[in-house]
């Protein structure tokens, strides 16, 4: 048996589910690597932090290409924007009302708390861009691979939400919030895969969360090793 045949046999021996699971874990660990290891021993250098994150994004893009996934496949499209937005309205309103109640009870409502930089457009632009980027990784990549492993439904939706929450550990309330948001976004993505609608929802919910929950309770959104100071 020559080398090529051995490689063929080995890679064919790896099931579609195993390969997809490996992809999920690989991206998950790249982000954990940035949050926990590079941040702690890299002295908080943004340049170093960008290495594992950049590698993860490069890997996801190459994986799409190898699998023949188009931008439309992963949800960068507009034709189903309305359908996705409609699915998001109810959970977004419910979560917003809940957070407003929390803010009212704790007297911590301040919609100018998240300044997002110098420009008045900084906050919404940052929020939407950051939301889109996270939703791309979470839904456009992890959700799609999770569906290869567990199929469409609550198992893959829950796995996506758990991964999203785990990436926000050990921040307790942020972990809880991202798990709840992750469930909604993963469910909506499986019904109507539109990353623009999800990115907007993500940015909006982040703004509401920051504006209503006391900053001390959110530990200033710190996650990973940075959480400890």
């Amino acid at each position, binding site marked *: 048996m020559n080398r090529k045949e051995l490689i063929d046999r080995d890679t*064919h021996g790896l099931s579609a589910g195993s390969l997809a699971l490996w992809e999920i874990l690989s991206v998950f660990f790249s982000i954990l690597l940035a949050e926990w290891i590079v941040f702690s021993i890299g002295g908080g250098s943004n340049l170093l932090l960008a290495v594992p994150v950049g590698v993860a994004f490069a890997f996801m893009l190459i994986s799409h290409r190898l699998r023949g996934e188009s931008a439309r496949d992963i949800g960068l499209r507009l034709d189903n924007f309305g359908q996705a937005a409609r699915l998001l309205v109810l959970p977004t309103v419910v979560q917003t009302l809940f957070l407003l109640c929390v803010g009212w009870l704790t007297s911590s409502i301040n919609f100018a708390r998240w300044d997002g930089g110098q420009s008045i457009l900084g906050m919404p632009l940052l929020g939407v861009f950051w939301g889109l980027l996270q939703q791309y990784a979470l839904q456009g990549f992890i959700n799609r691979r999770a569906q290869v492993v567990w199929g469409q*439904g609550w198992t893959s939706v829950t796995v996506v939400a758990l991964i999203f929450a785990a990436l926000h550990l050990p921040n307790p309330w942020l972990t809880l919030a991202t798990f709840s948001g992750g469930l909604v976004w993963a469910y909506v993505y499986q019904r109507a895969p539109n990353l623009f609608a999800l990115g907007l929802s993500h940015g909006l919910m982040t703004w509401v969360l920051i504006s209503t929950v006391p900053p001390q309770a959110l530990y200033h959104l710190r996650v990973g090793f940075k959480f400890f100071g």
Partner: protein
Amino acid sequence: MSDATPLEPRHTEAGDAEPGLRVLFPPGDSSRPARARQNLVRLLVGKSIFEALLVAALAAAFLSSAFNPSFRGALTLVGHGRIEGWVIDTSRPEARVEVQLYIDGRFVASADADKQPSEMSGAGMTTDGRHGFRFDFDVEGSSEHEARVYAVHTSGDEGTRTLQLVGKPLRFGGGSSPEVITEGAWRGADSR
């Protein structure tokens, strides 16, 4: 999710049996999915190797900058509410090393090792000899306690502070007399 919107069946990696959003391998060319899969596996292996090397390089850089192998020192007296010793950074003998005292795992005090020590086996490493420290403290009860003295090393732009244990953890109290320690000098390179 039984109420999911029905999606049209597509040629998928997972097969055509179930409709839904699936991750595609390119249809048509039957050899391409296998090749794509091979490349994906190689990519995953390469990514893992790169990340392992990144962690190893970071760890090596961190260890070399965060720990100072040039510290020398010793604890020379412990007991009756007092700990004495000395610490020198042999790479910068003119500098004074900050030391911190912990008793039973709790921070007690911090000081610079800038006093003339009562005993210094590291004589000759420095010109002025003023690298001693002394901590006076109160401990409650007559039970035994554990004292640790750490030399503080600051490194990096962020001012990362690393504590390097001076000598060994020492036990005192429980009615014992002050102990004069005659062990050899501790070397920073021996730090854990």
